[in-house]
């Protein structure tokens, strides 16, 4: 079975802090990591391969440095990798990204299953997985929390919903996006780390993918970022003062005035 896992290299959100003055991101010294959700997708792929045989190929689109995330994925146990990188890919929205990834997947065909994390933690759109599936004409399921069974021509999964879950059967080849409940990712192996250093990773640019400049990156994007700004912290904050009893009392009076609580605590002191 050939499983393709799509990864994205993202800034480590755990290290991201807000500048208290400007409320903008302080990004100096923040490392790039594999999008956390993609690690669950990778683990899901590795488990299917370990059980059924075959290979796992990791695929990413990004700047040249994104190769690091592919090597890291190899250290976890991925068999092969491919990097889609070109200046022309910069500024891609989810439309242009799914187009480019689809062209990359076609380079890696044939395949049985594509796995993605449910979304990337920088953009949070969750659109590239479904978009990629549609580009390739594949059936798909999102928010997969469990893979119940994998057969030669079909897969049974559980999809996490707000009020429970749905059980689905999907004909292969197919695409799944996974949530973190699906598994507990392994740690990189020593053998994997060794292989990660030497493995050859093919690089595909726009020309290799047969893509025109107008189909990729900013020029190939249908959405445009008109403005980027720091969110307004609109709140007038009031820090309550005095002994605990008074602070709590003042709080309830304020909430009562805002009609947020039905009780009259004014006389409770």
């Amino acid at each position, binding site marked *: 079975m050939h499983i393709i896992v799509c990864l994205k290299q993202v*800034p480590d*959100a755990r290290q*991201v802090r807000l500048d208290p003055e400007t*409320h*903008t*991101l302080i*990004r100096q010294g923040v490392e790039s990591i594999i999008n956390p959700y993609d690690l669950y997708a990778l683990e899901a792929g590795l488990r299917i391969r370990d059980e059924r045989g075959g290979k796992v190929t990791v695929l990413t689109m990004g700047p040249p*440095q994104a190769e690091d995330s592919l090597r890291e994925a190899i250290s976890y146990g991925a068999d092969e990798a491919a990097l889609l990188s070109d*200046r022309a890919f*910069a*500024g891609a929205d*989810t*439309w242009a990204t799914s187009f480019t990834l689809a062209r990359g997947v076609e380079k890696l065909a044939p395949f049985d299953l594509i796995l993605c994390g449910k979304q990337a933690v920088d*953009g*949070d759109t*969750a*659109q*590239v*997985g479904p*978009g990629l599936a*549609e580009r390739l004409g594949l059936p798909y*399921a*999102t928010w997969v929390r469990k893979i119940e069974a994998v057969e030669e021509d079909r897969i*049974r999964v559980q999809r996490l*919903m*707000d009020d429970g879950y*749905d*059980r*689905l*059967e*999907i*004909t292969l080849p*197919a695409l799944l996006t996974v949530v973190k409940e699906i598994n507990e990712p392994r740690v990189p192996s020593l053998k994997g780390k060794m292989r990660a250093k030497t493995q050859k990773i093919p690089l595909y640019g726009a020309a290799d993918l047969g893509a025109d400049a107008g189909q990729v*990156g900013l*020029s190939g*994007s*249908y959405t*445009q*970022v*008109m*403005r*980027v700004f*720091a*969110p307004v*912290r609109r709140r007038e904050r*009031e820090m309550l003062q005095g002994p*605990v*009893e008074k*602070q*709590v*009392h003042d*709080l*309830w009076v*304020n909430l009562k005035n*805002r009609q*947020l609580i*039905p009780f009259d*605590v004014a*006389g*409770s002191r």
Partner: protein
Amino acid sequence: MSATLLIDTDLCSGCESCVSVCPFSALSMADGKPLVNDQCTLCGACAEICPEGAIRVPEAAPAAGPDPAYRGVMIFAEQRLGRVAEVAFELLHKGRELADTLGVTLTAALLGRELDGPARELLRYGADRVYTVDDPRLEGFTDEAYGEALTQIIRSVKPEILLAGATPIGRSFIPKTATQVGTGLTADCTELEIDAEKRLLLQTRPAFGGNIMATITCPQRRPQMATVRPKVLKKGAPSDSPAGEIVPFNLDWSGISGKTRLLEIVEELSEKVRLAEADVIVAGGRGLQEAKHFSLIRELAELLGGAVGASRGAVDSGWIPYAHQVGQTGKTVAPKLYVAIGVSGAVQHLVGMQSAETIVAINSDPQAPIFDVATYGIVGDLFEVVPEMIRQLKAAGG
């Protein structure tokens, strides 16, 4: 032809704001001027921060312009098991406003079974026309059938704007429809406005876990599609004598392969916390120190008639099930009152609750970031403060 950031080195004062604000470490200083490397994604954070206006993001080359045959605002009205999702009414209210600004009609697309009741409800909440596809194959949700159905409706009705809720269903199949139709899509919007002159939908959404807001447009393609977070927009008042009409839509099933089969819908009642719809939420964090101290949170929540929330830290510690988690990897909530107790306020938590109307923060650390978003803050030991809160409420007859 590849797009690069446009830097006017004559205007640049060398302040380095752009270097520190860049989310991708794509800028460095060389001879006192910024230099851009391959990491740049043209996100525009530098252009926004630059005090001299020395940085510009190149605009994509304008193409032919949008198809003028597309007119009107359509919302996708989600229903599950015959119940219309609240977000559909919120979208109708906003959709009405957008449609009135543009001088066009407001329609809704409704998929499922036995849709008469739900369709009438949508009319009461302001839809001029409701397109229904009543079919047993749409009773449960599959991306394939839903995606294809909405695509066919869009191609036939040709709305210039399509809005859907950013729910597990909307976020799943709307990207398929947008790809099929061949248009742009903006996820998880929190604000929508119209640029009346250009007939453009201005779609504002958080990115980077809520640290950056971005306003997105889709100038060339129609419809302009967006998913919108539940509970962010207001719901309107229903009308007793709606004037709109219900129009059954004939779906062509020939292109629907049935490669995705829904076997079973499993409701997990134990996880039904209804957090997303609660008006009051009392949330506990790591400051509670132990699982048993969540009883304080539960008692206060009960007195206030609210639901119990939790930070990721508390959930990861195993003190409370994941269904209660608020934040980027949990639920997004927007109650009238959010009481955060012993929650430090990591970015990933703030994203999930900062649109609450009133936020009360109780924490022993005056530097805790939760106070940045708080309306009222109490710095103190929660084991003193919370019992006092409960005592005063009880004394007041709560």
